[in-house]
């Protein structure tokens, strides 16, 4: 019997919600319990918002799109059968919503100059590759902050391909499907984005030297 079909005992106390697993909260929410859904929102809202912010780089848009993702999740909750974790499921929903928003605003297409750079491998292609791990020895939080600063300087198209491939672990084919382009374009964008990120982080290291 799938997890979603198993009947669950209604929760009555606030502590029952906070102590419950994601799976049992999902089952409760599938039966119409909004308090269980609220607990799920509370647990995963920062992750969902962070992913929306990583993609959109705008606080207001990230807030609106993350909330839209939760509303869509409630509407589609009956489709969630527990094949993946709830966190993975809701993250995929917010990614799709952000991709739709970027498509509407035509942000998924690389700028003409970037497109040319992508096709030829970019100026970065000609630069000698970075041989020193400039982020070695950094604390995880500092490492993330540097990467964040580097990602912020990439275009939407290049940042998105890195997020889908590196953070979400999607294969080229799946990235292409979601971004609505060819596998060849994904490979070029990924290459350009990685080399650009390496160059940006190297610059960042140089400018921060005392």
């Amino acid at each position, binding site marked *: 019997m799938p997890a979603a079909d198993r009947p669950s005992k209604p929760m009555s106390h606030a502590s029952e919600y906070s102590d419950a697993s994601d799976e049992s909260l999902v089952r409760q929410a599938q039966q*119409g319990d909004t308090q269980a859904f609220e607990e799920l*929102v509370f647990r995963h809202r*920062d992750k969902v918002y962070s992913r929306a*912010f990583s993609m959109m780089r705008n606080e207001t848009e990230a807030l609106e799109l993350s909330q839209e993702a939760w509303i869509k999740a409630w509407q589609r909750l009956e489709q969630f059968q527990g094949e993946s974790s709830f966190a993975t499921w809701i993250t995929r929903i917010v990614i799709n919503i952000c991709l739709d928003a970027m498509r509407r605003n035509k942000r998924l297409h690389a700028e003409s100059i970037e497109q040319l750079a992508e096709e*030829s*491998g970019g100026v970065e292609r000609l630069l000698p590759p970075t041989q020193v791990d400039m982020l070695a020895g950094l604390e995880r939080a500092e490492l993330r902050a540097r990467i964040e600063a580097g990602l912020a300087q990439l275009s939407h198209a290049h940042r998105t391909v890195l997020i889908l491939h*590196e953070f979400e672990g999607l294969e*080229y084919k799946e990235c292409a499907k979601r971004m609505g382009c060819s596998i060849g374009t994904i490979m070029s964008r990924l*290459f350009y984005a*990685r080399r650009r990120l390496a160059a940006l982080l190297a610059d960042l290291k140089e400018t921060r030297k005392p």
Partner: protein
Amino acid sequence: MTHETQLKLQAWLDGELPASDAREVLRLVERDPDAAALARELKLTRQWLAAGETLRPVPESREFYWAQIARYLPPRESATLAVRLIAFDWRRWLAWLAPAAAALILLGVWLLPRLAPPQSAAARAPEIETPGEELGTFTFRSDTEQMTVVWVNAR
């Protein structure tokens, strides 16, 4: 190194290159220092990104964030009903309902004058009348007084 080779090198690192091409790329990395350097850089970027993204807290209180979501959540039963209503093919029923309604209206228009009770002669003509010459009778009806007076006059 051509751009195509660079992309192959990247695909090899990402585990997306067929085994036959993978052997070729491996040989390239072993003998070409530029290819080896590029492979190292691409590996580095993968390592950095493996640290994941910065977790940003939602810049609103739990209650406010939830309230904005909650106002758009339809009740679970209504959501199911809404899905059923969407699935219901209204157009199929309208194709029957529209002609049926038109036929009913026409029938009503035709039947209405026939079903209405006939108005009484008195109501229609509240005037003096003489039913027969030999009887010498007068009938008078007053609608305002709600009264009928029959005067019989023997000749």
